[in-house]
């Protein structure tokens, strides 16, 4: 029998499986207090998914004060929509608005790597569509356990083919991402996905259900039993799933994606936007219809009535609670004026998209859901969507933080002879974290849509937004979790600095920031300390750089047993370039006789470095120093250099230091180079230190003087470090030796194919 509101009133004492649904005693009590009675099964399903960590941000929300406290009016001015919307939107000029967002799909991708990753891409793309934008490109920052662990051989190929399988079929170029290995991710890989989209400024759509009498239309795929309980599973301590309070057998909390349906849905949505017949729109992601209906109603100016029995189903005998919490993919929900419904249905029919009027916007402020005429949900929507619980979790600096920082890398044995240094360069180039990502990126279409200007291997991905003017955007995502572990505040600022630098290195001006904060359990005070430090570091860092955080995502409970992952606040920076034709490529050798200049200062900084990790399995000490004013100066100079055509190639220094940057620039450019180290500094430090704020640029000889004078005038340290040598076919480093390009290439490109076939 269906549990109606009347029935709930009549049976106040009936026991309910709220704990199994992830609700705490006091949360359940609060729901009873809000409703003045016990919730129905359907209401309980809605509250439990919407009040889950994943949907409600209940452990993280208190820290959002750092965003607002650090956003100046000038930073706000570029933002057309910010935190709180489906995705942040920034004005990039020429009448274009760009929206971008990162999201995690970590836990499902461990259970079912292919589908978990695929639906992660699908979900973030719908978020971008819900802003009224055309999705333009995707990126996929990934983290895996030890490269040689047998389970990594299951997880990595599955995730990579899932990201590719979905994104390729959707027709979105993949323009970048990350692949990082660390044993802390063994039982908990990270699959973060970014989507960027664009629209004309006037076409921005926000998720609001306004206008009494307007119709609510569900369109896209049918609703089935997949992914039920997914949200509570996603955000709770266990993967065990739940019984959904329905007595049905345990269902896989995994969704299967249908990228073809999503592709058609994209085209259908864009045609609907173009016709101007969408008042409000919301994607169905985690928490499915529970989320879409309550958020639309909560953000609007009225109530909403939904007839749940109208929802097209894929499975027989689904209960209202199941329909409300199903996470079937490829669905959207729109609010449409009654006079536009016919036109709406016509567009959907053209694309063969199932569309059903399931309800309407009503007077008042209740969300009422009926099931064959009986009321099964009657709630104030704000209490479901926006006024969920909020926790001030205990915070405590980990007891071992001091000893971790005290255990610096100074004692580690360093290579010193030329032969040792040469061997170390090859070893590092072949290490899993530094080796070429080609095995991964070759599985991704980077050409589709014809606007990709930079993609792997490149510091940032860049796409053309406007074909007439050449205006475009560049994006980079970064995070070194080891740096964050050693010092979460500085480490997060280093992630920001690297992403910012990667955007600037391609010639674009950094404009806005998104993030995906992947951490362990929020119930662990040490994790909450890392989290709070990271948020504060990012917010204050953004203020110093003058670029706003426009949105983001939090993923907690990333741990294997009781061991948390390395804290991994992935930072995405978006930049704008007025004409993509002046992009700066990574590979040297495009112009004859280029000089290589190293910009920035190199210090003896090895705490959390790739070298300490790869060679000594060591993690301790302090991360490199971060100097955001310097990063800003560096970015200004790179953008100015690009504008004036002074720079022919550039690549920043990050993981693996100068050695790795040299390896990549010569291999990508397919040209030799001669490099002179500074006789006054230890060659090992020069080659492998990971000091921040450094970039290697190639300038045509004719521009060298003009460029270096600009650096000197503006106070940016530079050093002439080498020359491109097209004849030699080797990377020659004075005092170290020569490495022929084929040998170098074999080291760099052989690793991932050997590991993953």
């Amino acid at each position: 029998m269906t549990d109606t509101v009347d029935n709930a009133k009549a049976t106040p004492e009936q026991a309910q499986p709220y704990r199994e649904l992830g609700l705490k005693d006091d949360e359940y009590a609060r729901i009873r207090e809000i409703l003045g009675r016990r919730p129905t099964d359907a209401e309980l399903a809605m509250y439990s998914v919407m009040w889950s960590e994943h949907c409600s941000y209940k452990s993280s929300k208190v820290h959002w004060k750092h965003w607002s406290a650090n956003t100046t009016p000038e930073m706000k001015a570029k933002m057309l929509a910010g935190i709180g919307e489906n995705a942040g939107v920034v004005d990039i000029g020429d009448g274009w608005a760009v929206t971008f967002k990162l999201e995690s799909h970590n836990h499902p991708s461990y259970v079912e790597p292919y589908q978990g990753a695929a639906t992660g891409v699908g979900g973030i793309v719908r978020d971008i569509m819900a802003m009224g934008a055309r999705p333009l490109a995707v990126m996929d920052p990934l983290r895996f356990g030890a490269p040689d662990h047998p389970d990594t051989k299951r997880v990595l190929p599955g995730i990579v083919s899932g990201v590719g399988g979905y994104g390729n079929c959707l027709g979105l170029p993949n323009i970048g991402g990350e692949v990082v290995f660390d044993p802390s991710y063994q039982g908990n890989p990270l699959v973060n996905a970014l989507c960027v989209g664009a629209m004309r400024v006037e076409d921005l759509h926000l998720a609001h259900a306004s206008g009494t009498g307007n119709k609510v239309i569900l369109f896209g795929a049918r609703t089935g039993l997949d992914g039920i309980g997914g949200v509570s599973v996603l955000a709770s301590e266990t993967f065990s799933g739940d019984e959904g309070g329905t007595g049905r057998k345990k269902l896989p909390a995994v969704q299967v994606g249908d990228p073809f349906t999503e592709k058609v849905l994209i085209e259908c949505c864009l045609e609907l936007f173009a016709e101007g017949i969408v008042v409000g729109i919301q994607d169905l992601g985690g928490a499915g219809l529970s989320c879409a209906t309550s958020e639309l109603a909560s953000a609007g100016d009225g109530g909403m009535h939904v007839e749940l029995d109208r929802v097209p189903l894929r499975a027989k005998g689904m209960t209202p609670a199941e329909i409300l919490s199903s996470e079937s993919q490829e669905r959207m929900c729109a609010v449409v004026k009654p006079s536009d419904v016919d036109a709406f249905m016509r567009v959907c029919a053209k694309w063969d998209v199932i569309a059903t009027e399931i309800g309407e916007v009503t007077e008042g402020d209740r969300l009422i859901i009926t099931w064959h005429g009986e009321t099964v949900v009657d709630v104030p929507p704000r209490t479901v969507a926006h006024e969920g619980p909020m926790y001030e979790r205990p915070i405590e600096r980990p007891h071992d933080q001091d000893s971790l920082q005290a255990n610096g890398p100074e004692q580690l044995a360093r290579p010193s002879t030329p032969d040792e240094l040469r061997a170390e360069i090859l070893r590092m180039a072949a290490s899993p974290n530094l080796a070429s990502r080609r095995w991964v990126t070759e599985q991704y279409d980077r050409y589709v849509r014809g606007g990709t200007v930079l993609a792997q291997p490149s510091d940032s991905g860049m796409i053309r937004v406007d074909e007439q003017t050449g205006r475009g955007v560049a994006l980079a995502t970064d995070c070194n979790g080891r740096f964050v572990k050693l010092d979460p505040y500085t480490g997060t600022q280093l992630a920001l600095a690297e992403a910012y630098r990667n955007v600037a290195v391609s010639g674009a001006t950094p404009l806005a920031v998104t993030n995906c904060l992947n951490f362990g359990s929020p119930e662990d005070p040490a994790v909450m300390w890392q989290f709070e430090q990271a948020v504060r570091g990012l917010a204050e860092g953004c203020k110093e750089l003058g670029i706003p955080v426009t949105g983001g995502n939090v993923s907690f409970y990333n741990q294997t047993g009781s061991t948390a992952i390395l804290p991994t606040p992935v930072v995405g920076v978006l930049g704008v370039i007025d004409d993509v034709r002046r992009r700066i490529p990574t590979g040297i050798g495009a112009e004859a006789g280029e000089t290589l200049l190293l910009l920035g200062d190199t210090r003896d900084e090895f705490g959390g470095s790739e070298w300490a990790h790869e060679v000594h399995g060591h993690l301790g000490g302090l991360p490199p120093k971060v100097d955001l004013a310097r990063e800003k100066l560096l970015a200004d100079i790179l953008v100015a250099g690009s504008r004036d055509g002074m720079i022919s190639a550039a690549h920043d220094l990050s993981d693996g230091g100068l050695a790795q940057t040299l390896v990549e620039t010569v291999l990508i450019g397919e040209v030799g180079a001669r490099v002179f180290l500074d006789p006054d500094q230890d060659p090992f430090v020069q080659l492998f230190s990971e000091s921040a704020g450094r970039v290697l640029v190639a300038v045509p000889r004719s521009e060298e003087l003009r460029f270096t004078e600009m650096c000197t005038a503006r106070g940016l340290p530079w050093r002439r470090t080498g020359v491109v040598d097209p004849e030699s076919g080797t990377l020659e480093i004075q005092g170290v030796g020569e490495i022929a390009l084929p040998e170098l290439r074999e080291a760099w490109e052989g690793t991932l194919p050997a590991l993953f076939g």
Partner: protein
Amino acid sequence: MARVVVDVMPKPEILDPQGQAVARALPRLGFDGVSDVRQGKHFELEVDDSVDDETLAKIAEGFLSNPVVEDFVVRRVQS
């Protein structure tokens, strides 16, 4: 030697976009009367007589199918 067949199908509650695409196309091609289609994989294995049913079930469950989203059936078709 025996020939063993393993059929792997998406679980009934799991979305099967492949089968749906076929089901939707059939009427357009002029074939009516097919109300549902599901698409899975069909493996044919040449197996040594020493391989017992338990091993076959392990191969089918642990490798040829993904128990999270798929069911399987093993049949020996000749020996």
